[in-house]
């Protein structure tokens, strides 16, 4: 039992914010009270718990009491993220402020930073940090230590625009699990680790992750329908798993674009008939609807277009028989010049629009030459018909029907580009429009007609709709390589792509990154990945033993966690249960704190992850992958009736009584 003075002090002087964000006096709830008055050990505790039972608040408050009253005390809080660590210290500051208000005097805080507090009167320190930036040296002495882990998982691996993780910087944008944009908020080096190399169907690209990294997967059930997505560690992944593929969902906010008037140029908007065309809109330029036709123009430019260096004209070079430009012929109030040119590379048709305004407009929208790209805003803000036009034109320009001899005489559409960003963005556009995944291959050292060419990206389109449209037949082997879960639809949905191979490769340098999105997961070239707590704390056992060396004998060390599958804490917990550690294991089931209605609602919401998040016993807390096979209620009765052995024997001692 912890000294009763703590409870009295906390309830007398500290305030806390409740769930409505109101400041209220800190009255211990039943679980907190039971812990502090009955269950806790004076010095070493490990708490396994359901979500949000208020232990962090209590432990922070207890340490704050020491910080205020105990001379030369040093309290350390270790959280899993910098954001969480700073949030915890904010709570401590709130306690101190409420104490000051009630006692009507000011604490002499010498340092008051985001990571550290120093009490000039007691010469006590209060430090927070993450496992990465808190250094536990034997030279340091810690009075109180609190490990707060497992509340959040972090993100690892490359982003959808394929910069290697080592090149990713804080502030870079990546795609989250839900397909939304999110930014990288933290990054750190986690040393060399054994690596699993994962490859999915529909691509020849791979990602390298450490075996403990979690990957968002679903498995195939009846009628080839997928289960609800779960997190699975890379080492447990099989070829039967389907990895989540996230893509953006457009909000279709941008209805019009303006080709702005340029100084000393012929104004496109001067012609009266074009002014009338667009819903009474007037602007200092030509107003264009973001419709299929404009999309087609942009897409065709991405495939075949070119802008002169002085931004005076836009031209398209295509096959001499192509007439695709006629689709957007009436989009602009000027007619192009069309000429046939013969050169070394054969006869080409060149369509040229001599308009500075048009060239500037296109350059600003999607760039020119090496800078040609599809901006993110197209996928998040532009209407689907615009995107459809853009994709169709790009396919018409760069695509070709392709004999796939290795699978018989079947054909498919293949679209080749040297621009990685366009290939990847078009793949996402296709997902967004059709709720299907295109195959994407990266070809290095490619040669055509005996000459080495640039590295290219090739998108392949299969399926019945393409068959009707372009005469390409679907490759039947492809149709089950991507699927969607029963509850996922094109509106809310994600796609899942089957795992093709998982290989062990040599140790590599690994990095962790953290993103702002709540899902703490993001898209790589091989689907959605996250990392795990165990991976986040690089070597938890080493870190813990090092930290405990620094804690004084009469100090307090409390490890608090919500378990999540099999990890270091499970072994540590079992050691504590079996008396192999001097930590006292304390577990509180979810029903001891939450009402039946609340838990029923959570069960509906979390489905199979419910047991982990709101466990009734510690074994449930460590379940990683499914429901118990045996009836839970019966097992609980067995557990209650379990007894200690009356005798244990080593080999050779068989004195059964």
């Amino acid at each position: 039992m912890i000294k009763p003075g703590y409870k009295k002090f906390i309830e007398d002087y500290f305030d806390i914010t409740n769930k409505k964000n109101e400041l209220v006096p800190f009255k211990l709830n039943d679980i907190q009270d039971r812990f502090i008055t009955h269950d806790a050990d004076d010095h070493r505790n490990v708490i396994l718990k359901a979500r949000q039972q208020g232990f962090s608040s209590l432990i922070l408050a207890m340490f704050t009491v020491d910080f205020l009253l105990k001379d030369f005390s040093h309290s350390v809080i270790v959280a899993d993220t910098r954001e969480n660590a700073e949030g915890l210290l904010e709570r401590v500051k709130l306690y101190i402020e409420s104490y000051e208000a009630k006692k009507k005097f000011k604490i002499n805080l010498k340092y008051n930073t985001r990571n550290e507090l120093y009490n000039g009167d007691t010469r006590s320190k209060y430090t927070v940090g993450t496992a990465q930036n808190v250094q536990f040296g034997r030279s340091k002495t810690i009075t109180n230590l609190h490990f707060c882990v497992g509340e959040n998982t972090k993100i690892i691996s490359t982003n959808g625009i394929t910069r290697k993780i080592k090149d990713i910087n804080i502030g870079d944008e990546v795609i989250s699990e839900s397909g939304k944009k999110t930014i990288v908020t933290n990054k750190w080096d986690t040393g060399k680790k054994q690596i699993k190399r994962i490859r999915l169907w529909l691509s020849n690209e791979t990602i390298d992750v450490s075996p403990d990294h979690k990957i968002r997967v679903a498995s195939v059930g009846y009628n080839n329908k997928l289960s609800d997505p779960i997190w699975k560690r890379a080492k447990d992944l099989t070829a039967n798993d389907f990895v989540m593929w996230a893509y953006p969902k457009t909000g279709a906010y941008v209805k019009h674009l303006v080709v702005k008037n340029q100084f000393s140029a012929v104004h496109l908007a001067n012609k009266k008939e074009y002014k009338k065309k667009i819903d009474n809109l007037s602007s200092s330029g030509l107003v264009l609807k973001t419709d299929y036709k404009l999309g087609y123009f942009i897409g065709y430019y991405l495939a075949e277009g070119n802008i002169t260096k002085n931004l005076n004209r836009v031209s398209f070079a295509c096959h001499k028989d192509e007439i695709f430009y006629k689709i957007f012929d009436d989009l602009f109030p000027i007619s192009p010049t069309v000429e046939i040119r013969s050169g070394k590379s054969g006869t080409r048709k060149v369509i040229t629009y001599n308009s500075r305004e048009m060239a500037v407009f296109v350059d600003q929208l999607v760039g020119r030459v090496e800078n040609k790209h599809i901006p993110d805003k197209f996928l998040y803000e532009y209407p689907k018909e615009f995107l459809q036009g853009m994709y169709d034109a790009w396919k018409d320009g760069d695509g070709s029907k392709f004999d796939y001899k290795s699978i018989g005489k079947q054909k498919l559409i293949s679209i080749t580009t040297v621009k990685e960003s366009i290939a990847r963005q078009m793949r996402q556009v296709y997902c967004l429009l059709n709720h299907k995944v295109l195959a994407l291959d990266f070809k290095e050292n490619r040669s055509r007609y005996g000459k080495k060419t640039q590295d290219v990206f090739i998108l392949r389109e299969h399926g019945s709709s393409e068959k009707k449209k372009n005469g390409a037949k679907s490759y039947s082997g492809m149709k089950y390589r991507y699927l969607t879960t029963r509850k996922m639809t094109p509106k809310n949905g994600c796609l899942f792509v089957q795992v093709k191979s998982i290989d062990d490769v040599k140790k590599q340098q690994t990095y962790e990154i953290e993103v702002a999105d709540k899902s703490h997961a993001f898209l790589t070239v091989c689907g959605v990945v996250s990392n795990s707590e165990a991976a986040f704390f690089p070597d938890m056992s080493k870190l813990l033993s090092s930290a405990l060396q620094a804690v004084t004998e009469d100090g307090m060390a409390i490890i608090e966690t919500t378990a999540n599958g099999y990890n270091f804490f499970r072994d540590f917990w079992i050691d504590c249960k079996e008396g192999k550690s001097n930590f006292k294991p304390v577990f509180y089931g979810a029903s001891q704190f939450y009402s039946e209605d609340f838990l029923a609602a959570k069960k509906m919401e979390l489905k199979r992850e419910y047991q982990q998040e709101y466990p009734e016993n510690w074994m449930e807390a460590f379940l990683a992958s499914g429901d118990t096979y045996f009836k839970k209620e019966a097992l609980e009765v067995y557990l209650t009736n379990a007894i200690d052995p009356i005798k244990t024997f080593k080999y050779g001692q068989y004195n059964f009584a």
Partner: protein
Amino acid sequence: MGNTTSPEIIRQYRKIEKGEFFVVGVDTAAGGIDSCVAQFMSKTNTDIPLVYCEQITATEMTPKIKSMLEKIHDMTGVRPCVAFERNNGGVFEMERLGRLNRDDKFFLYEMFNYGNKDSSQDETYKIGWETNSATRPKMLSDLKEAIDHQLIKIYDRPTIEELFSFVVVQMKTRWKATADVGKHDDLVMALAITYQLFITQEPLGDISISDLPEENYFDNKGFY
């Protein structure tokens, strides 16, 4: 399974009584981090008072199981029935155990050849328990029924913990009951084998001449 590696390889939960009939299911290990496990179940009291669990190979385990079975016979006066899982070399260890049984203090489980409908064929048996895709669902569903309805008494906490971590996982076309990621199923599988013995085996009495089939000892000319 925390105490697999502990030096205490046998856990006893109550006194063994005279006249009790024991059935013993043994899950054999291939070595490494796997454990050999034996659940000693009393058919008389429908409980499991003894559990053996050790990180060794099946070959090393056989003499130890033999000693324990003999000890049980000495204490109860009834010959226990034992079945090794035939996988991981268990079938050879069963044969070896049979050869070691010189004092006839226990008997080996003979597994019926399920699904043989041809009445003209002799009934075939094989010693030990064979876990395969046909028998696994049966042994687990039988055990599930027993556990869910609390038909048997289990005192051993590690076994109950393993029952908790035995989960249903969705495979490509079906659901499979298996140990959770990073956990063992030795104690559960041994328990499932034991339960099959529990529902099929009866104690054998001491053999006397009158128990034996007449044709084995008499011919037309009388006793030979």
